[in-house]
C-alpha cells in the first residue's frame, strides 16, 4: 500500500482510514498537494473533507495510512504540533481572541521578548509588516473585535503565515464574507502562492474554486474519487463526481417508492419570491400548489434549508415576499406559520426535531397542544385518540405512546415527526431530507406516505440530497445555487443531468427562468 514518495509534492496523504463507532469516516482516502499550489478539497455532506483535515493536523488519530509532509513521514499529535511544523489551519469560526489587539493575536504564544519582557514595539512593527504584505493597513494595536470579519480572517491568515507555514488549510473561509472581501482573500491566497506557500481550500462555492484553485481533490463517502488539475474538469463533471452520478439520460431507476406519474396540481398554495438574507439567501424563489410535490435541489451550502426555514418563519429575512393562498403573509415565528397551516420537518432530527426525553405521545402532539386544550388543560382522551390513530396509520413501531422517543429507531422517530404535522391537518408540509439516515424499509414507507398525502391534496416541499428521490418523487424541481433559484424543471424535464447542470452552472443552459438566475 505504501505509495511512492514524490518529491514534487509538499503533502502526500495515502491510504488514510478513520473509523468512528459505527461509521467508517475515511476509507483508503488520499490527498496530494504540490508546492506553491492552491488545492481545492470538495465533497458533499459526509464525504470526509473535515475528517481528512483533522487527521492531517493531528486533531484526530488515523487508524491507517501514511502522511508525508515536506519530504518526511509525519504523525502530528495535535494541531499545535502541526502548526509548529508548518501546517496552519483557519476554520470557519475564527478562533482568535476578540478583545486582544491585532498584533497580540498574531504573535500569541510566541511574543518577541526583550530583557524577559514583551517587546511591544517590535511586535506591533512586525504585525503591521506582515499585514502590509497582503495590502492590509490597520491599526494593529486595536482590539480584533473592532475589525470586520474579513479583516479578522486576514489576521488569522497573517498569524498562520508568521509561523513560516508551508501549508495553510482554509476550511470554508468565504462563508461569512461578502464579494469584495472574497476578492481581498483571493489576493492574499495568490500572494501566499507567490511566496511558495501551498493552500488547501475547502469551499462549496464552485465559482470560487474555479477562480483561485490549481488542482482539485473530490471526495465522496470517505473515499477520494478524483484528483486532477481544475482546468481539466468542468463544473458539471465536478458536480457529477461529487454526487457519484454518471452523466447520462437515465430518468427513472425505480430506486424509490414514489409512484410514477404526475400529481394533479390544484390551486396555488405557497409563493415565495426573492428571499434574501446575507450571503446564504440571495434571491430564492419557490412556489408550491396544493396536491403537488416540489423538490428543492442544490449542493451543500446552496441555501435549501435556509429557504425552508425562511418560509417557515424560523429565520428572519432581509427581503422577499411570501404568499399563502394568494395573501401576503409575514411569519415572525414558526407558530405563525403553523397557524397558517404549514408544517416543517427539519433536516437534523436529533438536534431540531425530537424532544428526546418526552414520550411518543408528547412528541406527536407538541404542535397540536393549543387545539387539544381547554383553559390550558390537556384533554387526555382526545390526545390518546389522535396519538393511537397516527401510530397505527404510519405504522410507528413503539411499545406504546408512553415510550420515550429517544428509544425509537431513526425511521420511527421520523414517522413520529411526520405525525406531529399530519395530526394538524396541514395544507403545506416542508420536509428537509425526510429520509436521511433511516433504514431502507422505513424510507420506502415514508416515500409512499408522502405520495399519498400529495394525492389527497397536500402541498409538499421536499428537500433532498438524493437525486433519485427528487427525480422520481417530485412533480417539479427547483434548483438553488449560491442562495438563489437558478432553475425550475417541470416533471418531464427532470433528469439527473438537468439538475446537476443547474447546480453546476446556474441557469444559463436551462431555458426556463433564465432571466432570474443570471447575475445581476
Amino acid at each position, binding site marked *: 500500500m505504501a505509495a511512492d514518495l514524490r518529491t514534487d509534492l509538499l503533502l502526500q496523504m495515502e491510504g488514510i482510514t478513520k473509523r468512528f463507532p459505527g461509521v467508517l469516516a475515511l476509507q483508503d482516502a488520499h490527498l496530494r498537494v504540490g508546492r506553491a499550489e492552491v488545492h481545492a478539497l470538495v465533497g458533499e455532506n459526509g464525504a470526509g473533507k473535515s475528517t481528512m483535515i483533522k487527521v492531517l493536523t493531528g486533531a484526530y488519530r488515523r487508524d491507517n495510512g501514511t502522511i508525508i509532509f515536506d519530504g518526511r513521514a509525519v504523525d502530528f499529535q495535535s494541531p499545535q504540533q502541526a502548526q509548529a511544523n508548518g501546517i496552519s489551519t483557519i476554520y470557519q469560526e475564527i478562533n482568535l481572541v476578540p478583545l486582544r489587539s491585532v498584533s497580540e493575536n498574531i504573535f500569541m504564544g510566541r511574543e518577541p521578548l526583550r530583557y524577559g519582557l514583551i517587546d511591544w514595539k517590535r511586535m506591533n512593527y512586525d504585525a503591521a509588516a506582515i499585514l502590509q504584505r497582503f495590502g492590509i493597513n490597520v491599526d494593529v494595536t486595536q482590539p480584533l473585535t473592532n475589525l470586520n470579519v474579513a479583516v479578522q480572517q486576514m489576521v488569522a491568515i497573517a498569524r498562520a503565515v508568521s509561523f513560516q507555514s508551508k501549508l495553510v488549510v482554509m476550511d470554508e473561509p468565504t462563508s461569512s464574507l461578502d464579494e469584495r472581501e472574497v476578492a481581498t482573500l483571493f489576493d492574499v491566497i495568490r500572494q501566499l502562492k507567490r511566496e511558495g506557500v501551498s493552500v488547501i481550500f475547502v469551499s462549496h462555492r464552485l465559482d470560487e474554486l474555479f477562480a483561485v484553485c490549481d488542482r482539485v481533490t473530490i471526495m465522496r463517502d470517505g473515499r477520494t474519487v478524483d484528483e486532477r488539475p481544475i482546468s481539466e474538469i468542468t463544473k458539471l463533471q465536478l458536480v457529477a463526481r461529487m454526487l457519484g452520478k454518471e452523466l447520462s439520460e437515465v430518468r427513472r431507476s425505480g430506486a424509490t417508492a414514489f409512484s410514477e406519474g404526475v400529481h394533479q396540481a390544484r390551486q396555488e398554495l405557497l409563493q415565495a419570491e426573492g428571499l434574501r438574507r446575507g450571503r446564504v439567501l440571495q434571491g430564492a424563489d419557490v412556489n408550491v400548489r396544493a396536491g403537488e410535490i416540489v423538490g428543492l435541489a442544490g449542493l451543500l451550502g446552496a441555501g435549501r434549508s435556509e429557504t425552508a426555514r425562511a418560509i*417557515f418563519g*424560523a429565520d428572519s429575512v432581509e427581503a422577499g415576499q411570501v404568499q399563502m393562498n394568494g395573501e401576503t403573509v409575514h411569519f415572525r*415565528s*414558526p*407558530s405563525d406559520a*403553523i397557524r397558517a397551516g404549514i408544517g*416543517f420537518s*427539519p433536516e437534523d432530527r436529533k*438536534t*431540531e*426535531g*425530537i*424532544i*428526546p*426525553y*418526552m414520550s411518543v405521545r*408528547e412528541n406527536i402532539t*407538541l*404542535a397540536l*397542544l*393549543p387545539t*387539544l*386544550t381547554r383553559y*390550558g*388543560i*390537556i384533554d*387526555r382522551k382526545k390526545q390518546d385518540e389522535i396519538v393511537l390513530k397516527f401510530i397505527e396509520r404510519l405504522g410507528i413501531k413503539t411499545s406504546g405512546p408512553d415510550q420515550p422517543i*429517544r428509544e425509537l429507531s431513526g425511521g420511527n422517530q421520523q414517522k413520529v415527526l411526520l405525525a*406531529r404535522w399530519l395530526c394538524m391537518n396541514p395544507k403545506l408540509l416542508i420536509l428537509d431530507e425526510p429520509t436521511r439516515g433511516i433504514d431502507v424499509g422505513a424510507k420506502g414507507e415514508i416515500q409512499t406516505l408522502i405520495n399519498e398525502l400529495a394525492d389527497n391534496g397536500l402541498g409538499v416541499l421536499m428537500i433532498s440530497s438524493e437525486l433519485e428521490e427528487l427525480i422520481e418523487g417530485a412533480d417539479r424541481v427547483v434548483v438553488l445555487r449560491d442562495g438563489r433559484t437558478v432553475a425550475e424543471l417541470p416533471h418531464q424535464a427532470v433528469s439527473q443531468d438537468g439538475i446537476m447542470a443547474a447546480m453546476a452552472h446556474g441557469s444559463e443552459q436551462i431555458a426556463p427562468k433564465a432571466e432570474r438566475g443570471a447575475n445581476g
Partner: protein
Amino acid sequence: MANKAGAAGISAKVELPEQEPIASARYRGIGQTYGALIALIVLLLYNAFFTPNFLTAQTISVNLTQVATIVIVATGMTLVIATGGIDLSVGSLMAIAGALAPLIFLEKLVSIGNSAITLPLAYVVPVIVAGLFGAFNGTLITRFKIQPIIATLVLFIAGRGIAQVVTNGNLQAFNDPVFQYIGLGRPLGIPFQVILMVVIVAIVAWVMRATTFGRYVLAAGGNEAAARLAGVPVNAVKLAVYTISGLLCGIAGLIVIAINSSSDANLVGLNMELDAIAAVAVGGTPLTGGRATVVGTFIGALIMQLIRFTLLAHGVPDAAALVVKAAIILVAIYVQRQRAV
C-alpha cells in the same frame, strides 16, 4: 470474555455474565425513579427506631415548618431548572419581599390607617414585586440572551442591596398576629405554612402533568430548537418560569419574617439558592433540563431536612453535619445519574 469461551460447556456459567448488566441496569432504573423516596423512607425508619420522641406531633411539625420555605422556593426552582436554566436570585428576592411587607403594614411608606387595607396589601404587594423581579430575570435571559447563571447573579448581588436600601439597613421588628398568621397560624393544629407548602406542591405538580404549559416547560428544556420549530413559545415559557419562581420567593420571604417577628435584609433567604438547588437535584430533577419532578423536589427537601435533624438529634456538631450533608447530596446524584444517551 475469555472466561466465557473457556467455560462454554457449562451453560450456567456462561449465562451469568450476561445477566449481571441487565440486573444492574434494573437496579439503576429503580434508583433513578424511586431513589429519593427510598432514601426518605430509610431516614424515617432510622429516626423512628433510634431517635427518641421522633414520632411525635411536635417533632414532625417542627421539621415540616422548617422545610416549608425551602420546598416553596425549590418548587419554582424545579420549573426553572426544567427549562435548562437556574435561578440564583431566590434568596435575595425573599429578602426584598421580606423588607417590603413590614414597610406596608407598619405604614412606613404611606399612611392609610386602616389595617383592612394595609394587611392585604402587605401580602400582595411584596409577592407581586418579587414576581416582577423574577420577570426581570426572565427578560434578561430571553430578550438579551444572557446565560441564566449570570442573569440571575445580577439580582443575587443587587437584590439584597435593594432590600437594605428600602429599609435603610434597619432590622424591622413587629408584632402583628394577623399578618404573622402566614408563619405562625395553626388551623386545625397544622402550621399554616405547611398547608401552603402542600397546596403549592400539589398545584404545580398538577400543572406540570396536565397542562400545555407544563409540556412546554419540558419541551423548551428538552430541546429548545426543536420546541421552537414545533411552535412552542419558548421565550414566553421561560419568562413565565422565572416569574413564577419570583412569586414563590415572595411568599417564602413573608413566611420567614412572620416566623421571626422581624425582617432583617441581611439574613432573610440567606443561602436559599443553594438549599433549593440541592433539594431539586437530590429529588431527581437533572440540572440539564427537559425533565422535572416537583414531588421529587419535595422529597429531596425533606431528605435534606431530615439529615440535618438526625445529625443534630444525635449530637453531631454542626460543622461535621455540613460535610455529611454534602456527602449525601453526592450519593443521591450518583444513584440517580442518567445513562449516557
